[in-house]
């Protein structure tokens, strides 16, 4: 049975780098409700990461993500000086030294990924959607997080990918393969939008058109969240839905601001921010011990 919501899990590490030449090796583990990432940073530079689906057991998911990130690097957990746990499952990362909220971590991660000019970060995760305002050092100055309602989250998108029997990694592209842009679905609620979509399909709407209508509604919803804390350039997107151009392009059009192009995987922002926090905390710890 095809699982349309399933996206590729993967790992990566900097092949040309030798972590042994580095001084401070730290890690951030972001255990979200849908996906988990472990990110390893050496002297403040991204070194390795893994991205996988969160299982039913948070501590287990944290461990697996970490093991996978370490694979092939020659690193072991003992070599890591400080681990920060973040995300919904942050209190359940058994080997972490400290838990930090995903708000602070995403701001930090975005600051690394997109540079010190980022002032507004939109993170659309598996079961939440947040907007974070930050300064040039990635410190949070305002945030709004919605993790109560599935609309505007990855799960909402998964429900639709499943309904339309389309692989989730293709929905963005497919949503633009329409004759003309349809009006958005009228229901914000994913459950009701699904009923609405079913009726549209029955009326003869092609799948891509329904997809476009849904992406349009999701984009609009996210825009209202953005407007709540205000949008200041530069604007950047993190999280899984950052990879869905169907939503990204439509929301960029609506706010009239383009998001900075992503050069790194948008899903690792939380873990990366955590690893950077870990670095600072490790430095402090070593300085205090000296």
């Amino acid at each position, binding site marked *: 049975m095809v699982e349309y919501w399933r996206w590729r899990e993967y790992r990566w590490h900097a092949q040309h780098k030798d972590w042994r030449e580095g001084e401070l090796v730290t890690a951030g583990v972001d255990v979200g409700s849908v996906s988990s990432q472990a990110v390893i940073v050496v002297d403040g530079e991204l070194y390795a990461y893994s991205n996988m689906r969160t299982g039913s057991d948070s501590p287990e998911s944290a461990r697996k993500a970490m093991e996978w990130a370490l694979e092939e690097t020659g690193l072991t957990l003992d070599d890591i000086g400080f681990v920060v746990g973040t995300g919904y499952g942050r209190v359940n990362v058994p080997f972490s030294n400290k838990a*930090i*909220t995903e*708000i*602070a971590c995403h701001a930090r991660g975005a600051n690394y990924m997109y540079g010190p000019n980022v002032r507004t970060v939109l993170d659309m995760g598996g079961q939440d959607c947040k907007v974070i*305002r930050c300064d040039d050092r990635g*410190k*949070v*100055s*305002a*945030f*709004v*997080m*919605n*993790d*109560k*309602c599935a*609309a505007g989250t990855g799960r909402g998108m998964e429900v639709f990918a499943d309904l339309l029997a389309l692989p989730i990694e293709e929905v963005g592209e497919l949503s633009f393969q329409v004759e003309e842009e349809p009006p958005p679905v009228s*229901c*914000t*609620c994913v459950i*009701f939008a699904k009923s609405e979509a079913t009726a549209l399909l029955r009326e003869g709407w092609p799948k891509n058109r329904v997809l476009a209508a849904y992406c349009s509604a999701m984009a609009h*919803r996210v825009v*209202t*969240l953005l407007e*709540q*804390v205000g949008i200041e350039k530069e604007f950047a997107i993190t999280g899984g839905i950052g990879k869905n151009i169907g939503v990204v392009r439509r929301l960029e059009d609506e706010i009239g601001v383009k998001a900075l192009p992503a050069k790194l995987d948008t899903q690792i922002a939380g873990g990366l921010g955590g690893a950077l*926090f870990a670095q600072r905390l490790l430095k402090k710890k070593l300085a205090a011990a000296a």
Partner: protein
Amino acid sequence: MKAHYGYKDGAGDFFLIIDTDQCVDCQDRGCVPACPEGVLEIITDDYENEVAAVVEDHRKKIKYSCAPCKPDRDRPPLPCVMACPAGAITHSW
């Protein structure tokens, strides 16, 4: 930091907004006992400051948690808002 706690769903926007920069110098913490539903608490945030926040359990049902103080008519001033001398607390609904 302006922290917006709450959610947005099909029925609207329900956020309790706390300007935590104002919490740093606050000695009183009057907002916490002022709330009859125990919605607020003091936490240490990610930057090591002691600030007011919405209790995790209430965050996702803030509309329901705050409902007793928000009757449809003759709504009195909200106790949490009144309790903060810096005016750091506002509600979006």
